[in-house]
């Protein structure tokens, strides 16, 4: 269903406010459901003894992360096998040789090496001639460390200064409950009143009305002509205001925030990880469309990142009510990637993203003109995307909004050969140093409406 959003908001809050005010005087609710954050920190005691004599796990971690972690994980299979326990499976001398130059070892006909190569689909391992035996000892001592116990993420108490009220229940729900209780109370009161009256009538007792009958208030109001007139005028103005506002909000999707098939968070990718906008939306540089990235762009990183960090996961569950790891599994389902075997099954199905920013078909907008030539920041039109957990439309995208910007923005002419002569002539004509898009003809009909 399509709706007009303006004017409901105001009344919604007014209605709720009235409810709250009428209610809070009679009944004050104490909220005692502030949950204590459970911190089940199991201190994983790192055993300092390493399985490899003379190896330094700290140095080893650094080497491992820069050289090996692209294909190996200590405790699970990746491109190459899991490395934990390798010193029990193989001889140390064999390991030295294998790591320094695995291909040479295979060519020399070493049976262990050939069997391993066959088993892992003949994926060649890089040679590392720069590693000394000491370095390899360090790396091996790092991977031979016992698997650390997973630390349960402590609820983010430090970040939220005060205890959350209502244990994360939104205000609207609380208000709804209050309204319901109020309604029930009034119904009960009316019922009680009726029964008492009936009892009284049955017993022949006259219920005394000890209030003197005055004029009802609305009669008094109707008799005061000045009051009536001014009220009518105020009412007319209010109706005009909301009527016009309602009409002006027809067809404006500002704040449109549909529920996407995968809960993709711009906050994490563009905000926390500072991934450049054009990394995923690469067609914005060269095309009319700034397309939604195809799934191979997702897999560039998510081949390696199958799970989010525990603190990210905890934050997602607490604040946004979303399980990020399950969302990554949805991506794997769409691409047909199997993290267990590290291979594609070949069965893929596209993700049906919902497009938020829609221009009518009679308006032509070109991203590359604005992004590459105009060098306008993405946030100018799309708002603070790096802070959005769920994407919504920030700007109204109306014609007035476009034209306003064209009137105020100067065209980037320096370093652009195309503008050399044009700038000279236009600057003379208008007597200005800088030329706005409007002066360039950027508000002519045909420029955007063909």
């Amino acid at each position, binding site marked *: 269903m399509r*709706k*007009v*959003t303006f004017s409901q908001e105001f009344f919604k809050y007014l209605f709720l406010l009235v409810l709250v005010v009428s209610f809070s005087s009679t009944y004050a609710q104490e909220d005692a459901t502030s949950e204590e954050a459970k911190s089940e920190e199991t201190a994983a005691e790192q055993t300092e003894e390493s399985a490899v004599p003379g190896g330094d796990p700290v140095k080893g971690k650094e080497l491992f992360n820069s050289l*090996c972690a692209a294909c190996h994980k200590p405790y699970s299979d990746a491109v190459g096998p899991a490395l934990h326990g390798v010193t029990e499976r193989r001889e140390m001398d064999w390991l030295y040789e294998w790591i320094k130059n695995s291909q040479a070892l295979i060519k020399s006909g070493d049976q262990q090496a050939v069997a391993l190569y066959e088993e892992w689909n003949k994926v060649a391992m890089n040679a590392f001639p720069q590693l000394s035996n000491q370095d390899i000892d360090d790396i091996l001592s790092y991977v031979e460390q016992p698997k650390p116990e997973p630390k349960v993420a402590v609820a983010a108490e430090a970040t939220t200064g005060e205890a959350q009220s209502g244990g994360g229940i939104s205000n609207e729900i609380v208000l709804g409950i209050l309204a319901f209780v109020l309604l029930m109370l009034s119904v009960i009161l009316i019922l009680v009143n009726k029964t008492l009256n009936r009892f009284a009538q049955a017993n022949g007792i006259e219920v005394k009305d000890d209030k003197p009958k005055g004029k009802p208030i609305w009669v008094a109001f109707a008799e005061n002509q000045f009051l009536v007139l001014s009220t009518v005028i105020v009412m007319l103005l209010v109706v005009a205001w909301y009527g016009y506002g309602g009409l002006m909000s027809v067809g404006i999707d500002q704040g*449109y925030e549909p529920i996407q098939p995968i809960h993709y968070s711009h906050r994490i990718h563009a905000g926390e990880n500072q991934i450049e906008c054009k990394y995923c939306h*690469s067609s914005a540089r060269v095309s009319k469309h700034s397309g939604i990235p195809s799934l191979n762009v997702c897999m560039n990183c998510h081949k390696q990142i199958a799970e989010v960090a525990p603190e990210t996961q905890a934050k997602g569950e607490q604040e946004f009510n979303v399980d990020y790891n399950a969302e990554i599994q949805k991506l794997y389902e769409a691409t047909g990637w199997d993290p267990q075997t590290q291979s594609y099954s070949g069965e893929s199905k596209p993700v049906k993203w919902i497009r938020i920013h829609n221009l009518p078909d009679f308006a032509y907008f070109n991203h590359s003109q604005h992004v590459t030539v105009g060098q306008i920041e993405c946030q100018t039109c799309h708002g603070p995307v790096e802070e959005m957990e769920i994407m919504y439309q920030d700007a109204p995208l109306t014609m007035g909004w476009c034209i306003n910007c064209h009137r105020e923005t100067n065209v980037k002419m320096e370093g652009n050969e195309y503008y050399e002569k044009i700038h000279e002539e236009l600057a003379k004509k208008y007597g200005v140093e800088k030329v706005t898009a409007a002066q360039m003809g950027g508000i002519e009909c045909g420029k955007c409406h063909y």
Partner: protein
Amino acid sequence: MKNFQLIIVSLLGLIFTSCGDKNEPASQYFANMYYTVPYDTYGEYEIFENEQEAKKPVEGTIKKGWMPYEYEDNTEGYEKAKTELINDLAYTEENIEEGKELYNIYCATCHGEKGDGKGYLVEREKILGVPSYDDKGRAITEGSVYHVMYYGINTMGSYASQMNTKELWQVDMYVMKLKRDLEGVEQPEFENK
């Protein structure tokens, strides 16, 4: 009378609180030319396979201004590209500038702005195993860099969908410049176009 008033008030309350939904698009007034008659880019139409308007071109066709990459995506192809593939762009300041810009968008998040494998994602330990460009075991060359960008290697994906051939070569040029910086080798002179 009393009941009547109550009903009116509760109805009004319902009306004013039930509307306004940010998950729905706004209503429109006579949407005459709002929706496309031809197929919209990335649109969803039943007549296509998977309902995707974006269809793949026929295998083996070559469009104007583009040439297929002739090395295979395997170890032999990699070795071959490493030895014989060379960059035919001129080494100019302009190309290096473009390359730097693109490098900072697509590569620097992992490989670092200096190419030492210490990008922002590596610092945060999100992505691991990013080597430095002056890694002697890998001994990258112009050809091997292009090959890896085109196909991806191990956990690195392909970047051919995000950049065109010329842009890939510009990035390649900048990567070799970073490698020379890391090794402390003299940079060559810029050529004139």
